[in-house]
């Protein structure tokens, strides 16, 4: 499926802001399943400098600085991305979950050893026996990991109440677990914390989900709206050999196929927040985020990286 994705973040300041340093995880990651045809990044006002590099997890990061006084800042990406549904072929050979836990440290498989990095606590995701206990009913002894993951994904979807008002970025996951509500980010952090507490690697995925009102939905007769389509979305990626990293979206109770567009992955939100910055002055600021993910048939006339930023 080919998508045209527009992601715009606009900051409005109550007073003039002077120096502003920013870092964005806004450039969609290229993977086997995701081909980036074209990408444009517009920053208004024009930054003094822009550069891009790969972070620790291999995501493309953009950093830029504004030095002139400004009262607004708008960061807009437009990209054409082709997403392929995963070929979930080897799933029936999924081993028992305890087997996966104990195989990680054997250092036989470099990918499995690398996955080990995703089993410990991180800034937004605590681990511990209480999280393991919540996950346990989905993980009886010797159950195949894949079955356990799908069951657990469904349980979070059905046992938690989606409530954008109930939590903030600062709500810790033990509170989310206690009160059983939150948004996609809380669902993802909680699921990751539970899987890690069992010794299973899980990482946080930042991305987009196909917009609800996209005409293609009507054409296909799919009336179901996907939650999280009007802003950035977040889901989970769990280590599930022999397949590898398997995406799970507990907010929508599904395994993402070609409706999800990947931006970046890391240990949690802190590693991959779409745009963060430090600004001098500016007084109070308000933020407006718009995301639009639409299927399209055609690529724009010019291809290749945008000339305006050199990215």
């Amino acid at each position, binding site marked *: 499926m080919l998508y045209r994705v527009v992601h715009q973040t606009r900051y409005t300041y109550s007073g003039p802001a002077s120096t502003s340093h920013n870092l964005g995880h806004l450039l969609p990651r290229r993977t086997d399943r995701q081909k980036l045809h074209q990408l444009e990044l517009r920053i208004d006002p024009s930054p003094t400098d822009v550069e891009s590099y790969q972070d*620790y997890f291999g995501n493309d990061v953009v950093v830029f600085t504004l030095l002139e006084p400004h009262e607004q800042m708008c960061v807009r990406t437009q990209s054409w991305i082709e997403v392929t549904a995963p070929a979930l072929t080897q799933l029936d050979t999924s081993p028992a979950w305890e087997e996966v836990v104990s195989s990680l440290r054997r250092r036989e498989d470099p990918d499995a050893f690398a996955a080990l*990095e995703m089993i410990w606590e991180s*800034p937004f995701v605590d681990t511990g026996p209480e999280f393991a206990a919540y996950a346990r009913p989905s993980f009886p002894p010797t159950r195949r990991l894949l079955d356990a993951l799908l069951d657990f994904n469904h349980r979070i979807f059905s046992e938690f109440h989606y409530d954008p008002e109930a939590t903030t970025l600062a709500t810790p996951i033990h509170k989310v677990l206690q009160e059983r509500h939150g948004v996609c980010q809380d669902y993802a952090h909680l699921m990751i914390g539970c899987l890690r507490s069992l010794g299973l690697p899980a990482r946080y995925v930042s991305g987009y989900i196909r917009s609800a009102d996209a005409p293609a939905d009507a054409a296909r007769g799919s009336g179901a709206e996907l939650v*999280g389509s009007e802003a950035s979305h977040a889901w989970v990626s769990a280590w599930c050999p022999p397949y590898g990293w398997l995406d799970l979206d507990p907010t929508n109770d599904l395994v993402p196929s070609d409706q999800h567009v990947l931006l970046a992955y890391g240990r949690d939100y802190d590693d991959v927040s779409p745009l963060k910055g430090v600004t*001098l002055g500016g007084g109070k600021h308000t933020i407006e985020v718009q995301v639009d993910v639409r299927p399209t048939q055609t690529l724009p006339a010019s291809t290749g990286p945008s000339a305006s930023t050199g990215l």
Partner: protein
Amino acid sequence: MLRYWDETAGSDGNTKPPWEQLIAALERLGKRELAARRAHARRIIEENGVTYNVYGDPRGAERPWVLDTIPILIDASEWQVLEAAIQQRAELLNRLLADLYGPQRLLREDLLPPELVFAHPGFLRPCHGLALPGNRYVHTYAVDLARSPDGQWWVLGDRIQAPAGAGYALENRLVMSRAMPELFGEFYVHRLAEYFQAYRAALAQIAPAGCENPRIVLLTPGPLNETYFEHAYLARYLGFPLVEGADLTVRDSRVYLKTLSGLQRVDVILRRQDAHFCDPLELFGESALGVPGLVRAVRAGRVTIANALGSGLVETPATMAFLPGLCRQLLGEELRIPSVATWWCGQQRELEYALAHLDQLVWKPAFPGPADTRVDMLVGDTLTRKQRQGLEARIRARPHRWVAQEKVALSTVPTGDPGNLNPRHMVLRAYAVAHDRGWTVMPGGLTRVSSRGDSLVVTSQRGGASKDTWVLAAEPTPFVTLLPPATSPEEVSRRTASLTSRVADDLLWLGRGTERVEASVRLFRAAFQALADEPLRVSDLPAPESVRLIQCMGKIPSPEETPGSLQERLLGALFDRTIATSVGHSVGEVHRLASVLRDQISPDAWRVLGRLDSAFIGPSAHPARRVSATLELLDSALLRITAFTGLVSESMTRGLGWQFLEIGRRFERAIQVVQLLYHGLLEGLPEDSRRLELVLSVADSAMTYRSRYQTSIQLPLVLDLLLFDELNPRSVCFQLVRLEERFSSLHRAPLEELRMLLERLRTAQLDELIALHAGEDGRQTRAELARLLEALDAGLPALSDALTHAYLIHILPQRQGPSFRPAKP
């Protein structure tokens, strides 16, 4: 019964010869003399303002440094062994970091458990894979060493994040050389200056390629940090600007120091701030402290940070359990000095062993928590049964977060007097600095001793003392100073160090503060002089004029605000620091600014302000003090203030720092005189010569007046002297002329506005005032004078603000991030 190694005892059980010699020398000095020497040392420390900030101390927490005047002696052969071990360990930890922030081969080869990296919040992923000069992570290193009952040295801990204490060691040496000079004649003691010379050279060496004359700064978290004294002390000693995060900015991946003369490139940062707080953009999502973009500058290779960001990772005691294997792998040799026995509970066998011996071990978190939830170590045998059960449950829930260590029976050293020596347990902190050929170890260190004989806890946070550490040489050691040798001729330099905007701001306010204190002290002194003559026994007697002047000026709280007699309220206005308008409050503020500016003002000037501050606190400031004692205190306070301004005018180079201090003083003096004239001559007080005399004396111009005019005191002459006389250093006009001079040399100062104000003052014709005064009832004189004083009263603070805006804008950065709150479906 535990036995301890006695540092003074040789292997034969007898006292070692150098210790015998030391004790004999102390005995020769005698008990009385030693007590005097100890008092002397204490006084030097107090006057130098050597402090150690204690976290969580409600009293503001500046604790004087404690030095025991008996040094600890370490002989040459023993030191050689320690030196080699310190060099080995520093290099080992450096190589370990280079692997963990690079290929991570050691994790794949199972020489270090991955948890100790991946679960450690100090593993800073944005700093992984950066190409650092020489692939070096550790530049300065500190290590805590202790000796067990069999005489074996052990490592208790490694300090890499911000290896503190070398400055205190240096200060201890300087205090000892002044308090106990003859002891240095008994021994050949290794000097410390060489080490700091190597330290400075090493930091200059690590500048990014192509830096001819690297600019090195010392980055401090600020005055609230526990070792801020040391940051300021080292910065001054080494000649590096002392900066806080807000003093630096990153432009185009280069780090610059914000100074009054513009941005100046920074090449090397000696870091005393925890790495987490160094770059709010990349390192810690919750903080606005630090320098946004700093990691970018490191990534671009345009600045070197010592120690490297992220190097605190290997400080965890858990690392110690794996050092023997790592040493073999990385250096191909055995660890020279073992670490104290350590069990990391992330391993099943170690967990079970440690839990089985829970009450005999010391427990520490494997990973540092957030600064506000610092967990101290837990000593197993001090816990109740219930506490032990609680601890075991916590450990079992998250075993990889815990480390158990053996409790070391620390060796003892003598403290106190020769006649009455008390053994105390000790820990030695040693220091090393890296250069291109290896490591230089400081020949000495910081020895800390427990506060009680039965305590094995040695920490400055709990009030233990310190000792100077003498490494003995076989022959005299050459004298080294940090000033360059005469053989390298240097061009005469008149360049004054650049000044950061923050420091300029602080200097301006220090100038204003000292002047405000002086004006208030003069006013209160006049009041207490009057009280000494006619005590306020009966409340319905009219208060002396000077007291009423203070009331007019709003410097005494009203009876509604603070109940009590007038005299009590007067004393409150003088000493009570909880009252924002009190003199004591201003004195405290001056002292606070001076302590932030330790690297800007001379030690003598600092001492003077320290004494001023202590005069205004403590028992002597109690309201019950009699009038005469208060008068005495005010007299001496005035002397200290004038000593300070004298030191500033005679010893401070006329650089930008002096300019701002001077500007602050001139502004405040003008403001104070204007207010004195306004309240003293236009408000409330009866019009007689006593009023004029009071104003003259508070403005310190009575003598000038008397020497100039033999007549009685007349209003026009007083006004001339205090407003218009350009020769009287107390007049408003004098201050404005000085300000004009200063503003002329600062490009962005509001010179035009100042000139307009000066013009307004000069055109207020004295003749007219006199003529008016001679008129019918003087009412017009008063109106004209009031207009002039009001114009000055409004104009002066506005000018000060304009200057601040032009030069010293201080806005703290704020964080922003999109709220991650998708709309409801």
